[in-house]
């Protein structure tokens, strides 16, 4: 790619970017959110067209006007969010749009898939339905799909975001095999250690420009971070000790069966002390969301007990809990779809939980205005004004508004689900620091996370969920990533149950 530029409105997403990838090489694109990584590869895969600049493949200048052009040039994109059809088999998903005859020649397709599998070391059951697959298997199907179409340049967007450590390792093995076979591989990521582990060269993107391209062997995580952020940052997370032995929240035999009669939670029991951060690890969809919503009172179909400061709140609605003076703050996974009203400004979002306490039928926004200004100052939210719709803010600032509102209500207990998902390193550390400040205030915190490194360094204990059950709870100071990874896959091994 030579001198590529692309703007959206007034925003320059990519500014004069050039880079090249060789066959038989793994190349990483590293950058914070909003640095322009996705825009760049979307131009390679034909989803966007560059405003200026040229793309060369095999030395030939191309104009990629659509994904079809891109595929025919041998470029295959594996998106972060899989684009598969759930009710079809792996084989059908792979061959979709590729078989132009009237009949589906199953035998021929199957042979070709098996040929590719044996060449690169994939394991796949071609007849398995996608909806019955694990995340790792789905990703395999995605990769096979582009290989089947003859791609020899593969682009993977955040490929490890949803994988367990073991699945990640398998993926890396396959990528190395592909590299040996002469494929060019581009990985987009913001995980430093993966860049160090697998790639040959890495380019760091910052604010739409290339901040530098280096050989992985000649660099260090520290150097890459400084390039990403543009200044030196400390990557350490503190873990102040737990001071109290008082139990803040106790969950007893919590079960939940959803509308489709699927068991989402299965006799979950645990407790959180005041001033303790209890981490929750698990593959996505293991019941974390249901657990959080049950504690906050949103989930109505649950059975079992939830004791908050000794009082059973399992049957109460969020507002009833609030009215009892019990402050449970909840930072949901879906910030704009649940935590905030996307089209409203900061003031209207700040007032969301206590607007109804005002007397009379009218709504006075003055107190909320002051609180919004306080939050903007306290957490350094970048916004043109407090009357700016929150969906026009960047991901990090949206999260700061949400966190600010929840902390500002002086909570006793904080439930957070993936609070730093999609945030850049700088914003993420701000959030960790704020959580630690709340911890020192004596707030009990349930932290649902996905990055095992963060879970291990931030939390006091980590509870691992698998298919709605608690597989085990470990002490974060002594546990290892491998141990957690095995537990996330449902294998009860070294899980020391250190419930009080």
């Amino acid at each position: 790619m030579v001198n590529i530029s692309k703007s959206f409105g007034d925003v320059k997403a990519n500014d004069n970017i050039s880079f090249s990838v060789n066959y038989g090489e793994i190349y990483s694109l590293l950058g914070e959110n909003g640095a322009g990584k996705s825009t760049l590869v979307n131009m390679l895969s034909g989803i966007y067209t560059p405003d200026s600049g040229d793309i060369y493949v095999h030395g030939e200048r191309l104009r990629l006007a659509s994904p079809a052009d891109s595929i025919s040039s041998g470029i295959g994109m594996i998106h972060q969010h899989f684009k598969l059809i759930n009710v079809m088999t792996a084989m059908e998903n792979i061959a979709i749009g590729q078989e132009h005859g009237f009949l589906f020649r199953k035998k021929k397709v199957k042979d070709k898939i098996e040929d590719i599998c044996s060449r690169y070391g994939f394991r796949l059951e071609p007849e398995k339905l996608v909806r019955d697959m694990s995340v790792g298997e789905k990703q395999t199907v995605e990769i096979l799909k582009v290989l089947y179409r003859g791609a020899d340049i593969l682009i993977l967007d955040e490929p490890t975001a949803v994988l367990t450590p073991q699945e990640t390792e398998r993926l890396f093995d396959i990528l190395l095999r592909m590299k040996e076979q002469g494929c060019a591989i581009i990985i987009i990521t913001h995980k430093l250690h993966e860049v160090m582990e697998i790639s040959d060269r890495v380019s760091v993107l910052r604010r739409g420009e290339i901040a530098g391209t280096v050989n992985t062997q000649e660099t260090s995580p520290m150097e890459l971070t400084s390039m990403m952020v543009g200044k030196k940052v400390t990557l350490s997370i503190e873990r102040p000790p737990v001071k109290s032995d008082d139990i803040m929240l106790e969950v007893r035999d919590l079960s939940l069966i959803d509308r489709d009669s699927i068991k989402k939670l299965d006799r979950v029991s645990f407790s959180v002390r005041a001033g303790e951060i209890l981490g929750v690890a698990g593959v996505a969809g293991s019941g974390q969301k249901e657990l959080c919503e049950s504690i906050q009172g949103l989930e109505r179909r649950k059975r079992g007990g939830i004791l908050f400061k000794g009082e059973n709140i399992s049957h109460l609605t969020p507002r009833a809990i609030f009215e009892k003076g019990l402050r449970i703050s909840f930072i949901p996974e879906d910030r704009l779809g649940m935590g905030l009203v996307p089209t409203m400004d900061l003031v209207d979002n700040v007032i969301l939980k206590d607007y109804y306490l005002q007397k009379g039928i009218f709504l006075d926004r003055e107190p909320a205005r002051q609180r919004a200004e306080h939050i903007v100052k306290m957490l350094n939210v970048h916004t043109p004004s407090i009357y700016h719709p929150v969906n026009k803010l960047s991901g990090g600032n949206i999260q700061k508004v949400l966190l600010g509102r929840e902390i500002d209500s002086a909570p006793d207990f904080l439930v957070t689900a993936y609070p730093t998902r999609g945030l850049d390193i700088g914003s993420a550390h701000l959030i960790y620091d704020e959580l630690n400040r709340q911890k020192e205030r004596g707030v009990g915190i349930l932290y649902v996370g996905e990055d095992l490194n963060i879970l291990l360094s931030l939390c006091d204990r980590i509870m691992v969920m698998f298919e709605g059950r608690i597989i085990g709870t470990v002490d974060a100071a002594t546990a290892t990533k491998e141990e957690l990874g095995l537990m996330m896959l449902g294998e009860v091994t070294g899980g020391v149950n250190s419930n009080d």
Partner: protein
Amino acid sequence: MIKMSARTDCSAKESAAIRGGAIILALVTVSFFIMILGHNPFSVYGSMIEGAFGTVYRITETLRKSIPLIVASLGISLAFRLKFWNIGAEGQIMMGAMGATFCALTFPDLSSWLLLPMMGAASIICGGIWGAIPAYFRAKWRTNETIFTLMMNYVALKWLTYLQYGPWKDPAALGFPKIPGFSPNAVLPNVFGLHAGWIIAIVLVIIIHLFINHTQRGYEISVVGGSENTGRYAGMNVKAVIIYTIFLSGGICGLCGMIEASGVNRTLSVGITMGAGYTAIITSWLSSLKAPVIPVVCVLFAAMIQGGTFIQMAFQIPQSAAQILQGTILFFVLGSEFFVRYRVSFIKNIKAGGEK
């Protein structure tokens, strides 16, 4: 190749320019059509304006036509704020008119001071219930409100037809299927030469504006409209919010039916709505659901209808031709919304794709 991209940076000035440009383009396009018919476009347009605003009588007529649009648009805007796509204003207007007519026919001798408020209340309740039925099913079982409210229109129309041809048929009309005229007590008085519906419309604009922007209930509507899950998360009773908001929405449309029956027709007939329930969907959308903007848009819309009627007579243009003019303007204005939201650019196609 044509490329479209969403724009978020469209300033108020730009969007006004785009919309103004659309109207001019529409007028230019229709000019050709008028010339084919053998008329001078400038004089036709001039007469349209004259027909809508030329004399006191014409202004009154224009305003009279705008009142049902304003009231129904206000009702619809409440539902649309909730992202409840209420297409049922037409039926809600009819039900409201039926409720009002029931009171007018049952108590013709009651004093105006009692009868008119009674008719108003009956129309709000009838229209409100007609809205609340689909709202209940939507809140409870997530049925599709667009189809549901649309179907409710036909049910309301058939009810009205039944009443007109059956129980409420005027025995004094010698078998002609019409509902009896209202007693003078049941007719809205004239204030400054126009029936008092205009006062109701203005008061409603102010109330709805205050309600949406400065009350707790109004805030809840905005929250649930923005994101139902956020409403749940904040502890709101989302189902109740949906049901009572749509009750209000339907109720205001019902009141529109009472104003038309009592102020304009002084009776009830199947043609009571004049299509206001559908036209108001357009006007409330064009006003971006903002109460203070609704009267402006509705008066302009009514002027277009009134002016169109006038040129039929002045130039002997057939009615259908006048409607083509209205339709074209509408097409361009609604079409221009696309350009407010998207930026269109042209890219030269150098070479599509590449050889392997």
